[in-house]
């Protein structure tokens, strides 16, 4: 499976969510088929609220992990 890495660390709000959603839509086909997942790297605390909220509402599964000073949000097709 492909991991599409989207590194948006250091970016201001509301860029984080908007860019993530845009990227999600660009790769909708492959993510829905389970061929790829979108991995968002962000140091924006609020993105750990807004991104999971938005993508679960869109029917994806989401996992958030804290890394070294930032968060890794993995968006996959629903299990």
């Amino acid at each position, binding site marked *: *499976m*492909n*991991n*599409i*890495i*989207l*590194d*948006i*660390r*250091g*970016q*201001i*709000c*509301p*860029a984080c969510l*908007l*860019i993530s959603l*845009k*990227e999600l839509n660009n790769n909708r086909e492959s993510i829905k088929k389970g061929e*790829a997942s979108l*991995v968002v*790297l962000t*140091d*924006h*605390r*609020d993105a*750990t*609220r807004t991104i*999971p*909220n*938005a993508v679960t509402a869109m029917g994806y599964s989401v996992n*958030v992990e*804290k*890394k*070294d*000073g*930032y*968060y*890794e*949000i993995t968006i996959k097709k629903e299990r």
Partner: protein
Amino acid sequence: MHEAFGYIGGISNSSGLVIFAAGILLGFLLHRSDYCMAGMFRDIFLFKDSPLLRVFLIQVFVTMFLFYLGRASGLLELYPPPNLREASFITLAGGFIFGSGMVLAGGCVMGSLYKMGAGNVGSLFAFTGLIIGSGLYAEVYPLFFNLHKDTIIVKDVLLGQVFSNGEDILFIFLMVLLSLVILGWIKKGRIYQKAYAEGYIQPWVTAVLLSFINLLIYVTSQTPMAISTAYAKLAAYTEKLFVPAHYTNLEFFRRLSYSVYSSKGNLIEGGPGAQIDHIFVVEISLLMGIVFGSFISALSLREFRILKKLPPLAQLISAFAGGLLLGFSSRMAGGCNVKFLMSGLPMLSIQAMVFLLGLVPGSYLGTILFKRFVIGDKVTVTVNSPPTGGKDE
């Protein structure tokens, strides 16, 4: 002006320390909850829903309740406080520009502080823009001040003064109404926020504590929480240092924002100029406290991140331009979202309501501008085949 020992501008040095400490707590809470007022308004237009705006209404409600009690018990001596004035069309225009500015800056006057304290470079640009914008206003101050005087909407500062006899009924009605609305949201689970950030503090907790901090500041300083004149003061000190002759010529820096006696006979006075006065002790202490508190919070979570990764140029320009607009418009309106929405609205300040009336369409415009000019194709996307990726610094 004669001042008692240990007193500056009608406020004691120890009060400044209390406010600095309150600022540290505030900065810590704002960072933990990512309590962003710019986001609250922007998200109405961006996502047709704004969970944090509901949380903000809790803050308005609790502050209204605390100020109401504080006034009734005589704890709040100066009511209306000296840092609120009449509303004019300049307040409305200021609110509109402010609304656009905060969306472009990625944070309001207070939000930019806690984000900067946590190491966000974009907010450092917004902070710089805020100082320069306040300084630019000083150049055109006489024009705008006359426009303000000529377009005053009502002479009263608070709505309660308009309905002098029905003031208590008005407040009780609003508090009952707000509590019913908030209870409804709590029942439907619309207040609790699910977030995965480490050390996350529920925004409603921050909302309630912000109200108490505001009361503490009001009791300590005789003025409710306000912060944006601190930026004008920073501009004043900078100009006094580098262009002293020009600084002395500017009327804006010579005038006082307020000068009133407290019941204890202290002359409470302060202005945007480069002098240590009431505004310096209150607002500069608060400003420094917020930056420091957020810095501590970010550091303790190992999330402090200055210069690790710069945002795209478009975002830096947007943050700086937004800061300029915030600085200029808050001086036009005579305050920012902190004074108006967090302090003025719960007192039913007419100036606060007029500011809000301008701020909402202003954030709509800001959202459109941000989407069009900042969210371009500036993101680099890399596709990795092995499932373990993400270390590309």
